[in-house]
């Protein structure tokens, strides 16, 4: 019997996860287009004509975009307990348990913390780019805002730690430990190479962005090993 004549229900070859990824990619196209057009418009208006982004700045922008995107997706998911339940409780095909309100609050908080991290990361190079030359007064205002955001985000991080279960806490603690040992070692080697005039000098901004990307990569690896991707 040909497939067209079969009474069997047609099973889609595209998994729901792949379909969602495809929809997000398509949705990202206009967002990227208009964001790019806005940034180019700013450059045309002379807002960041003198801005020459360093490698660290580019890393910061990339990381900030990733964090804001991940934060918005997480917060968006948390706005629907049914959708969140599908994502985090999706082991049982008979009935997906909707997320509890505590879980929804936890993921909304996680989304907010990610968005704030992205905003803080992008703020310094963005301020330099948009207000070129950046006056000391404006720089102080940006720094004050950053300190306020940092304190707020730290409270958010501590709240997430308190509300996490033991697997999540273990994953965070392992990520922190591995990151510290790895980057402390790398920092020493780079500093020694710099002292011996064998390596170029790094700014603190460059070093911070490299460690931040490394931290995220380590957290994803440890999360994957602990089964968070399952």
């Amino acid at each position: 019997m040909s497939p067209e004549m079969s009474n069997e229900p047609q099973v889609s070859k595209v998994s729901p996860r792949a379909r969602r990824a495809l929809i997000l990619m398509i949705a990202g196209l206009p967002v990227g287009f208009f964001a790019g057009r806005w940034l180019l418009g700013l450059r045309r208006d002379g807002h960041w004509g003198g801005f020459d982004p360093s490698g660290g700045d580019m890393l910061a922008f990339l990381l900030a975009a990733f964090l804001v995107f991940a934060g918005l997706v997480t917060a968006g998911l948390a706005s629907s307990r049914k959708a969140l339940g599908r994502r985090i409780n999706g082991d049982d095909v008979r009935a997906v348990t909707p997320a509890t309100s505590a879980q929804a609050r936890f993921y909304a908080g996680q989304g907010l913390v990610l968005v704030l991290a992205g905003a803080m990361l992008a703020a310094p190079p963005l301020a330099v780019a948009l207000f070129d030359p950046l006056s000391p007064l404006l720089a102080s205002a940006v720094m004050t805002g950053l300190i306020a955001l940092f304190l707020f985000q730290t409270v958010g991080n501590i709240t997430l730690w308190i509300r996490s279960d033991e697997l999540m806490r273990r994953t965070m603690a392992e990520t922190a430990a591995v990151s510290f040992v790895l980057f402390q070692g790398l920092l020493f080697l780079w500093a020694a190479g710099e002292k011996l005039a064998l390596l170029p000098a790094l700014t603190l901004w460059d070093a911070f962005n490299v460690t931040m990307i490394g931290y995220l990569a380590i957290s994803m690896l440890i999360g994957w090993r602990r089964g968070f991707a399952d």
Partner: protein
Amino acid sequence: MKNRLKVLRAERDWSQADLAQRLDVSRQTINALETGKYDPSLPLAFRIARLFGQPIEAIFQDEA
């Protein structure tokens, strides 16, 4: 460490989310325990033992 969590859960027809709710942990924690990717803390092991009404050593076995 090996454990019989998946079997005990299946006997009661509970999903991972059901068990997670009863133990006040995330579904990911139950999945990590069942797949051997994570060993529970002693307090969680006691909670699991109490929930299934069995001693800890009847649920968790040392592989050594």
